[in-house]
């Protein structure tokens, strides 16, 4: 996490220093972000698809992992949604 924080900090620092230039190039940054997000997701998929152990375990544990991965996500979203809905 340290290097991510460093990259974020470096980006923020440079953004503050060169704010006008960055805002002029905001469209280019938006396009670059889109390309990089797509690349990131492709690589995430590549990691999952290229891992024989994950693929071998899917038939036996697939449904269980869907419940144990999906329900924590759904409950977290619902709780935060209930809280933010009441506040706003």
């Amino acid at each position, binding site marked *: *996490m340290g*290097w*991510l*924080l460093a*990259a*974020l*900090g*470096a*980006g*923020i620092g*440079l*953004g503050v*220093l*060169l*704010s006008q230039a*960055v*805002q002029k190039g905001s469209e280019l*940054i938006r396009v*670059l*972000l*889109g390309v*990089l*997000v*797509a*690349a*990131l*997701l*492709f*690589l*995430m*998929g*590549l*990691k*999952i*698809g*290229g891992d024989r*152990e*994950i693929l071998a*375990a*899917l038939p036996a*544990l697939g449904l*269980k*992992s869907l*419940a*144990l*991965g*999906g*329900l*924590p*996500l*759904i*409950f*977290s*979203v*619902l*709780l*935060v949604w209930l*809280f*933010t809905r009441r*506040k706003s």
Partner: protein
Amino acid sequence: MLWIALALLAGVGTGVLLHTDISQADRYLSVALMALVFLIGLGLGSDWKRIMGIVRRQGFRMLMTPVLTVIGSLAGGVLGGVLCGIVWRTGLVIGSGFGWYTLSAVIVGDALGTEMGTLAFLSNIVREVLAIVLIPWITRWAGGAAATASAGATATDVCMPVITRSAGPEWAVPAFISGGLLSLLVPVLIPALLSI
């Protein structure tokens, strides 16, 4: 946002077909993530005063997101455990991985054996993948805080670009804080829950 699911599926398909060396994928993943986080920082920095104003207004609510994510994840884990016919405590422990599949799999595997370790690994991968695919929809339906909650610990890395793209650059800081706090909690919470 169909392209998110398509990019992910294209990667899975390529991995299955090409028997790719995943250690290389890991290296490129780190580089792409670092470049992304840098660009997000650049955007944040260029609009720093306005974004900090938004973050300050969120204040307490920003810290509530990780707290509610913990409660929701543990509740979901217990229910998942009961539905899957495994011990509810195991569900609780797996839910407390918050999407950090590598660490949760190692700790759970050490304590409860290979099968449960593999289940922890897969379940937390499923959480991350579902979050990536659903964040645009969750943002539209329930807002940036709910999108951040869906990502759990991964809001600090892989999911952060997806959150900021869907909810706006002002969500980068709350996502980083929420994901960071949850990441710090995983190595403490899982051993504590295992000892129940």
